Each structure stands twice: as structure tokens, then as C-alpha cells.
């Protein structure tokens, strides 16, 4: 293999004399990446071609004297020839052009200076932005730079020469799990978690630095699990260590009976969250301000607005959540038959053929204002007395991974049963209608707000579906997971088979896992 090393050229030596570094910095600060208001004014006024006055045409500045010239019209070339000034800088991108080599060159020292100046400017530009306009939706910030390995990483790469190529058809990441006696409730969740992209990336890049003394860290075990899943081994994995740790840390799940997969999910996330000291070194003690990987991925904020029916004062609380549990029609809780259509389902392209309930129907019910009857009066701080009120739930902050739990298992005093009503769910989900901000717009009279095509923040893609077959007493869990964007596989304990999108969408659905389509850097 040939390695392309960024090549400088010998012709820069004439430039690299005296105080050249400082001079170069000044050029970057004033004319290429102007960060301050004054330098921007200066740039606006002076950056025009000295020969023709144009500001477009790939303006370049001579590095040896104060001359600006068009590249396209060859005005800078003329100058270079006449004055024998062989170096110029592109004012748009900061590249250095050598007229002798007749190409852009990449001198290590000069590149270093360029990078530093650019970083400085971006930081101050961000501050300016916030100061002058309050919002900054163009996202000026830390520029994306490609990964460069550290010394340690280079060492590791050299010591581990085996490379694995991920093609669109490879099955890396797919692995069966042996059932250790009614443990499919655990297996199905493990399949969903090992195929959660951000979680996978976190563990495969060794981001967990364990501070627990004993061997009972669940996060370490998860890390090990990911290694097993992405090892390329095709034989089913036996998760006995994971099971043992679960029994240790979540006693209520111990035993050989079938447990609820949803309960296992919440218990697992809880233990993982507790065992993750904030991997940046700070202690993750405050549940409202934790930045462990579990919270970063799964935690959303649920807003609850209680409105007094007398004075219309609103009392708002925001609670963190890891999942959204949705009531289904046919349960003993009243499920209002909502008329088909409306914001939610037209946005998510669902059809209401044969009156099937949709996921968005359930979400609309979840976020509808609920009148708390006269027997449940709330003390209103505005009225200073107990009044009737309405309560409404909306999403304040969406998690990166949204998990919807369809409440199929009814455990009321009277009956214990499974609700098998079919609920249709989409491949792509837009959560905009259920946001607290959307509710505010509606209240301010902006009905039917034009769907902001450029706002992709609330769009989600389905990536895992956990299903339960059977009855409350004896049942079996399986999971559909998504691989390589549009391939789906069914995970039934040790058996992995290819599945069609239709198989997935026709399934009953118990736990639905959605992943945000677009991620913003913080």
C-alpha cells in the first residue's frame, strides 16, 4: 500500500523567515476566518480584487505583500509573476497555493497555524451568535475533523492486525442466545440493546472505564456481551454471567419463572445507569443531571400540565422517563375512540383500513387533556383552594432512543389477561404533534402549523420490535431487529432468521424501539 503524506514544498522556505508565523496568523484572523466584528468589517471592505474589484472568483491574498487578486481571472497569477511572490492564500478556505508547484501545498507548520486560527474563530463566532440573535440554528461550532489515532491507539492497531470488513450482507452483530430456562424475557431485550447503534458504538469503542472493585459490574458484562456479538462467532452465546448479575442486582427478577420483558428492560437500564459512574470522570449521582451513556441515549422529559378549571393557572412539572407505556383499546381503562385522521396519523402516513388502532392513536390518547373529576380536586396555588382541573402530558425532551411499551398485560384486581388487539406501528415516526412546543403553538392559535420540512429533530426510525406470543401464564418472547438500514432479522433465542419488513409490521408488537434519525452535536 502507498501512503499519501501531506506534502509541503521547498518553495515555502523563502517565506518562513523572521516573524512569519505571526504574520500568517494575522492574515488568517483578518481575511480568512474573521471572528470579531471589527475584523469582519475590515474583511468586508478590503477583500476585493485589486485589479478588477470583484469579491467572488476565488479571491486569493499574496503572502508576501498586501495584494488581493482573483484566481479565476488569473489576477493573482499576474501578480505572482510580476513580483516573483510565489505564495498565495485562498481567502475562502485558507489553502496555500504555490505558483512554482502550480498546486496547493500542505506545509505541516502552516497547516497547524491554520487549524488553530480556525478553532479560535469558531469559538468566538459561537459567542457572537448567541449574543446578537439569541438563537443559533445554523450550528456554528466545533468543526467536524476526521479521527486521528493517538499513540496508544496506533500501538493497539499494530498489535491486533486482524481487520474485519463490514459489507452490506455480512452478519456481524447477529448472534443467537441460549435459553437458560424461561430466560427469553432477558434474551429479547439483549437483542434490542445490542442492536441499538449508539450503545453499540459506545461499547465497541471501549468507552467504559470501570471503577467497581468487584466483578459484579453490569456495564462491564454488557461490554463483554457486545464483544461476543460482534466477534463474528456464529454459534449461540450462553449468557449465564449476565443472568447471574441480573439475579444479583434485580432480585425481583430472580427465579426460573417467566418474567416481563418490559420489567427486565427497566431494571437493566436502572442497574446499568447506577453502575456507570459518569464515564468522563465525574460522579453520576444526581438523577436529573446524569450524563451516563444510558441517560444520554434513553432519557427523555415528560411534561405534565395541570390546568385549574377556575383560574386557568397552569402548574407544570417535568419528569424523566425511559419509556412510554401506552394503554390499549379493550383495557379496563377508558380508551376514547378517536376519530381517524388528525395531526398524528396523517403526518405518519398511517392508514385506518378496517379501523385498526395505530401507534399514533395511542400517543394521541396519551397526550390528550384529561379531566380529573370532582373526586380528584387539586389544590390550586392561584385560587388558594381545591378546584377541578385538567391534566395533560406532552413530550418536553425526546430521547435519542424512544421505547414504546404497549400495555398488553392487564393485572387489575378483577382480571389478569393479555390484550391481543392489533396495533399498527410505522417504520418512520414523527413525534412533532406530541411535543410540548407543538401544544404551545396550538394554544397560541397556530393550528395546522405548516410541517417544517427542514426540522428533522423529531423524526424516528423503527429498529427493534419485541413480541410476546402466548398467554399471560405461558408465553414466549422474540425480537425483530434491524441491520444495515433495511434488513430485518427475527431473534428467537438461539435461532436467527431473516425477516421481511412486512413480518415486522404485521406483528403484534409489545415493545417498540425507535431511534432518532438525525443527531445534533451538543
Amino acid at each position, binding site marked *: 500500500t502507498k501512503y499519501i503524506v501531506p506534502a509541503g514544498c521547498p518553495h515555502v522556505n523563502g517565506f518562513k523567515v523572521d516573524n512569519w508565523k505571526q504574520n500568517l496568523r494575522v492574515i488568517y484572523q483578518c481575511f480568512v476566518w474573521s471572528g470579531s466584528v471589527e475584523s469582519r468589517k475590515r474583511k468586508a471592505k478590503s477583500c*476585493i480584487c485589486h485589479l478588477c474589484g*470583484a469579491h*467572488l472568483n476565488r479571491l486569493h491574498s499574496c503572502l508576501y505583500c498586501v495584494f488581493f487578486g482573483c484566481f479565476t481571472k488569473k489576477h493573482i497569477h499576474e501578480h505572482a509573476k510580476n513580483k516573483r511572490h510565489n505564495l498565495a492564500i485562498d481567502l475562502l478556505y485558507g*489553502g496555500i497555493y504555490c505558483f512554482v508547484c*502550480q498546486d496547493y501545498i500542505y506545509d505541516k507548520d502552516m497547516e497547524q497555524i491554520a487549524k488553530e486560527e480556525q478553532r479560535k474563530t469558531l469559538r468566538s463566532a459561537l459567542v457572537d451568535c448567541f449574543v446578537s440573535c439569541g438563537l443559533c440554528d*445554523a*450550528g*456554528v461550532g466545533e468543526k467536524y475533523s476526521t479521527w486521528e489515532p493517538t499513540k496508544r491507539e496506533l500501538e493497539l492497531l499494530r498489535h491486533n492486525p486482524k481487520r474485519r470488513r463490514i459489507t452490506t450482507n455480512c452478519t456481524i452483530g447477529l448472534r443467537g442466545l441460549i435459553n437458560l430456562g424461561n430466560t427469553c424475557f432477558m434474551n429479547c431485550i439483549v437483542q434490542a440493546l445490542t442492536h441499538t447503534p449508539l450503545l453499540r458504538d459506545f461499547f465497541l469503542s471501549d468507552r467504559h472505564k470501570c471503577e467497581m472493585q468487584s466483578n459484579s459490574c453490569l456495564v462491564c458484562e454488557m461490554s463483554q456481551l457486545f464483544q461476543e456479538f460482534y466477534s463474528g462467532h456464529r454459534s449461540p452465546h450462553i449468557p449465564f454471567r449476565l443472568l447471574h448479575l441480573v439475579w444479583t442486582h434485580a432480585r425481583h427478577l430472580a427465579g426460573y419463572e417467566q418474567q416481563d420483558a418490559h420489567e427486565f428492560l427497566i431494571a437493566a437500564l436502572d442497574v446499568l445507569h447506577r453502575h456507570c459512574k459518569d464515564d468522563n470522570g465525574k460522579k453520576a449521582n444526581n438523577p436529573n443531571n446524569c450524563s451516563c451513556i444510558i441517560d444520554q441515549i434513553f432519557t427523555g422529559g415528560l411534561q405534565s400540565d395541570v390546568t385549574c378549571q377556575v383560574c386557568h393557572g397552569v402548574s407544570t412539572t417535568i419528569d424523566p422517563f425511559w419509556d412510554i407505556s401506552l394503554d390499549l383499546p379493550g383495557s379496563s381503562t377508558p380508551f376514547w375512540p378517536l376519530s381517524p385522521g388528525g395531526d398524528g396519523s396523517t403526518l405518519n402516513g398511517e392508514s385506518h383500513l378496517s379501523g385498526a388502532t395505530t401507534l399514533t392513536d395511542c400517543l394521541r390518547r396519551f397526550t390528550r387533556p384529561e379531566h380529573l373529576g370532582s373526586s380528584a380536586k387539586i389544590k390550586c396555588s392561584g385560587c388558594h383552594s381545591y378546584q377541578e382541573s385538567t391534566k395533560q402530558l406532552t413530550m418536553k425532551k425526546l430521547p435519542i432512543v424512544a421505547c414504546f411499551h404497549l400495555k398488553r398485560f392487564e393485572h387489575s384486581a378483577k382480571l389478569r389477561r393479555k390484550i391481543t388487539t392489533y396495533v399498527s406501528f410505522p417504520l418512520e415516526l414523527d413525534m412533532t404533534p406530541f411535543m410540548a412546543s407543538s401544544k404551545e403553538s396550538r394554544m397560541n392559535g397556530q393550528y395546522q402549523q405548516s410541517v417544517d420540512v427542514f426540522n428533522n429533530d423529531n423524526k424516528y426510525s423503527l429498529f427493534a420490535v419485541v413480541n410476546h406470543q402466548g398467554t399471560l401464564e405461558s408465553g414466549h418472547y422474540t425480537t425483530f431487529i434491524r441491520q444495515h438500514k433495511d434488513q430485518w432479522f427475527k431473534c428467537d433465542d438461539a435461532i436467527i432468521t431473516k425477516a421481511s419488513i412486512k413480518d415486522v409490521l404485521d406483528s403484534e408488537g409489545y415493545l417498540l424501539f425507535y431511534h432518532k434519525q438525525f443527531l445534533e452535536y451538543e
Partner: protein
Amino acid sequence: MNKDSQMRAAINQKLIEMGERERLKELLRAKLVECGWKDQMKAQCKDVIREKGLEHVTVEDLVVEITPKGRALVPDSVKKELLQRIRASLAQHSTL
């Protein structure tokens, strides 16, 4: 310079002073990545490099070859949005 390019230059100046030009550049960059334009251009560049040979190709070769294609492939929706943004920014500081 004719009236048109005078206007262009004045607008450009205003946008630079406001810091808006940088923001617009970043917005445009993000949009062009999202719609796959950047990937298309990358592929085009690779083709040119293969054609000219890695040892001999210059930045100028690439600029000459892909600029017209690049300009043509920018989606109308992106052009529209940028135009809207520019109009809005200038309207805010309308001493032009």
C-alpha cells in the same frame, strides 16, 4: 462595475459584517451533506483523480471538472431556503 455587481458587492459586504455570511456557509454545508450532495461530489472527485492519476492531478483539475456539475446538482429546495435566509437577514438590517 455595473449596477448588478455593485449590488452584489454591497450585499456581500453587509452579510460579512453581520457575521451572517459565515452562518449561511455553515447552513449550506449542513444542507448539502444532508441531501447527499457532498457524497456525490466526493465520488466525482474520485473519478477525476482516477482519470488523471494520483501523482499528477492538481486541485485546479478538480475545480475545473466538478464545479459545473456541482452547481447543477444543488437541489432547488436548498437554493430556495438559502435565498429566503438571505432575504430575511437583509430585511432585518435594512439600511441597504
